[in-house]
C-alpha cells in the first residue's frame, strides 16, 4: 500500500464525511509518519532540547549587551574536550555502521569506546571548572562565568541522560538478550543523539569563543 506523502495542508483539508474520501480513509493504517515511534521520540526530545538551548542563547545574547559583562578566558583544555566529543561522535558512527553489518565484536568495542570517551569528556569539563574556579572565576563574580557554568552543566546533563540509554543498550547487548533489528535501532538512535549533542556543543562553544 504505497501512498503519496501528504502535506500538512492537504491533510487538514480532507473532507472525512464524503464517500470518496471515506474509501481512501478506510485503507489508512493509522500511522501518520513512516518512522518508528522511538525515532519520533528521539526527534521530539531533540526539538525540545533545541528550544531549551535556543532560549539560553537568546538570554545570553540579551545579557551580554549590558556593560558589566566581562569575558572569561577559554582554557586550552576546552579544545581538547571538544576533540574528545568529536572523536566520540565519530566512533558512534563507526559503531552504528558495524551494528548494521552485525559485526558483533566491533559493536562491543565501539560501545565501550564511546562510553569511555563520553565519561572522559564529562571529567574533562569538570577539570575545566576546577581550573577556572582556581583562577577565581566564580559564578557570582560575573554573569559571563555564570553562563559558562550553567551551559556546560546543562549540556553535561543531556550527555548523562544519553549515557543512561547507552548503559541500557550496552547491558542488553552484553547479555545477548535482544533482537538484532531492535539493537540496531537503539544504537542508531543513540548515535543520532550523540551527533546532536556534538552540534549543540559546537554552538555553545562557538558562542563563548566569539564573544
Amino acid at each position: 500500500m504505497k501512498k503519496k506523502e501528504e502535506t500538512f495542508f492537504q491533510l487538514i483539508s480532507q473532507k472525512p464525511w464524503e464517500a470518496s474520501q471515506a474509501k481512501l480513509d478506510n485503507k489508512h493504517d493509522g500511522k501518520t509518519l513512516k518512522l518508528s515511534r522511538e525515532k519520533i521520540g528521539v526527534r521530539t526530545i531533540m526539538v525540545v532540547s533545541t528550544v531549551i538551548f535556543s532560549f539560553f542563547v537568546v538570554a545570553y545574547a540579551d545579557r551580554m549587551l549590558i556593560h558589566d559583562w566581562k569575558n572569561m578566558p577559554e582554557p586550552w583544555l576546552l579544545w581538547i574536550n571538544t576533540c574528545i566529543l568529536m572523536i566520540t561522535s565519530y566512533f558512534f558512527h563507526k559503531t552504528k555502521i558495524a551494528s548494521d553489518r552485525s559485526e558483533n565484536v566491533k559493536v562491543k568495542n565501539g560501545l565501550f569506546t564511546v562510553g569511555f570517551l563520553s565519561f572522559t569528556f564529562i571529567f574533562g569539563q569538570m577539570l575545566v571548572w576546577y581550573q577556572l574556579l582556581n583562577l577565581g572565576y566564580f559564578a557570582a563574580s560575573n554573569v559571563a562565568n555564570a553562563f559558562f557554568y550553567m551551559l556546560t552543566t546543562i549540556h553535561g546533563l543531556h550527555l548523562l541522560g544519553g549515557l543512561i540509554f547507552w548503559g541500557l543498550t550496552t547491558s542488553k547487548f552484553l547479555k545477548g538478550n535482544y533482537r538484532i533489528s531492535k539493537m540496531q535501532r537503539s544504537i542508531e538512535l543513540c548515535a543520532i543523539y550523540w551527533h546532536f549533542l556534538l552540534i549543540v556543543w559546537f554552538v555553545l562553544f562557538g558562542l563563548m569563543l566569539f564573544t
Partner: protein
Amino acid sequence: MPDEFGYKIEAKVDMAASGTSVPPIDYVPVAERPEQELYHSKSWWTTYVFSQDAKYIGIQYTCVATAIALVGLTLSLLMRIQLAFPNLSLLDASVYYQFITMHGMIMVVFFLTALFLGGFGNLLIPLMCGARDMVFPYVNMLSFWVFVLAVLVLVASFFVPGGPTGAGWTLYPPQAITAGTPGNLWGIVLMLVSLVLFVVGFTMGGLNYVITVLQARTRGMTLMRLPLSIWGIFVATILALLAFPALLVGGIMLLLDAVFGTSFFMPASVSMGELLQTEGGSPILFQHLFWFFGHPEVYIVALPAFGIVSDLISVHARKNIFGYRMMVWALVIIGALSFIVWAHHMYVAGMNPWFGYFFATTTLIIAVPTAIKVYNWVLTLWRGNIHLTVPMLFTLGFIITFLNGGLTGLFLGNVVIDVPLSDTYFVVAHFHMVMGIAPVLVVFGAVYHWFPLVTGRMLDQGLGKLHFWITFVGAYMIYTPMYYQGFLGVPRRYFEMYESSYISTVGLNVFITLSALVVGLAQIIFFYNVIRSVLKGEKAEKNPWKANSLEWQTPKMPPEHGNWGEKLPVVYRWPYDFSVPGVDKEHIPQNVSPSEVAGAKVEKT
C-alpha cells in the same frame, strides 16, 4: 513485508474484518504493521501504584490535580474573607501575598494543565484513537510520579522557614528573591524546583501524547477522523512542549540567582540599606521568558477545553459539529498565534511602545479563530435535538462564560485601555472568567459525561443540575461585580481595603465573598455525588449518551487493560454521524461498517 528496520511482519489478518463473508464494501487490506506488545503488570505495586495503564494514570492525575486544587480553592476563600472583613485581620500582608502566589500557581499549572493533559489526555487519547495504550507506557508512569514529586515539593514550601514564596504567581525578579518578600529564601527555591520538576515530568508525558496520536491510531483512523477532543489535546501538547522550555530556562536562571547569587536577572540594587553584590541583570528578560511560556499556557488549558466542548455539544445536541474542518484549523491557528502575543502581559513593564502595537495587533487577530469556534458551537445547536443533560448544561455555561470572558479580553488587549485597567480588579475578573471558570465548567461537564466510562455508573443528574446552577450563577455573582470594581479603579493585590471618600466597594466585597463561599461550598455537592455514585450509583448501560467515538465502543465498560479485547476496532467514519439521512439508526458509531448502514447518504456539513 519488512518495515524500515527490517522487522518481519506477521500480517494481523484479524484486525481487518476477517473471514470469507466480508461484503466487498467493508473490505480493508490487511494491516502492515505488528500490534504493540502490551505490558502486563505482575504485582500489586505495578497494578495499583506504579501502573503503566494510561487509563489508570489518567485517573491518578485527575485525583492528585483535584486534591491540590482543593488547597488552591481554600486559599482563595480565605483571601476573599480577608478582603470582605479586613477588621477580622485574618491574614496579614505577607500571608495574603503567599496565598495569592500559591493559589495562582496551583490552579494554572498544577491543577488545570495537569488535569487537561495528564488526566483527560491519558484517559481519552488511547481510547479515542483506538490504541491499547500509550506508546511508551513506562515513561508515562514516570511522568505521573515526577508530577507527584513536583506537587509534594510545592506543598512542602508551606512548611519551610519563611513559608511559601509571596512573589506573585509570575515570580518576577528582583523582588522574588530579595529581602522583604515573604519566602525569599526557601519558598522561592522550592517553587522553582517544583516547576522544573513539573516541566520534566510533563515533557515525558507530552512525548507520549503526541506520538500516540500520530503513530498509534487504529486502522482507518485518519487524523481528520479524530474527535475534536483529541485535536485539542494534541495541539495543546505541542504548544506545551515548545512553551514549557521557556519556563524551564527562566526558572533555572532565577534559581541560580537565588541560590548562588549570580546576576542573570538581578540588577544592581540596594536592599535594606545595603548594596547587593549583583549588578547588571535584566528583570525584563525574565518577564519575556516567563510570558513566552505564560501566554501559550492559557491556550494549553483552553484548547483541550475547546475540543472537549465540541464533542460534548455534538453528542448532546445529536447533531454533527458545525464546520469540523474549520474547528481543526481554528485550533491550529490559535496554537500558532499564541506564540506571538506574549508581551501583551507586559504593556506596563516599560517596553518600547511600538512593541505594544505589534502585540496588540496579534492579540486582536487571535479573536478571529476564537470567534469562529464560538459561532460554530452556536450553529451546532441550531436545529439540533438538544438534550439538556448535565454535561450539556455545563457546555452551554462554558460558551457564555468564555464569550464574555473573551470579550473583556479585547479591552485589555489594547494598550491604551490596558494601562489604566491593568492594576485593577477588571483583570482579575477577566482572567478568572476566561481561564478559571470557563475551563472548570468544561472539566465538570467532561466528568459528568465520562464518569460512566470510568466507573460504569452514572452520576446523579438531579444533584448535578443543582451543582451546575449554583456554580454557574454563583460565578457570575462573583465576577460581574469585579468587572465593575475594576472600572471604578479598585486596585488588585491589596490585602485590605476600607471605605474611601471616592471609591466605596466594601459592600460589594462582602457580596462577592459571600457568593464565593456559597460556590466554594457547593462543590461539596459534586464530591458527594461522585463518592455516592462510585459506591452505589445507578449502573450505566453501555454507551449511555449514544456517542459515536471509539471510547464507548469497547467490549466491556469500563474498558479493561488493553481496552479492546481480542481485536482492535476498525474505523469507517468520523465521530459525528448523528441522524444520517437514509439510515434507521439515530447515530452511527465510528466502527460500524458501511454494509450495516447501506442506505446512508452523505450529510451536508
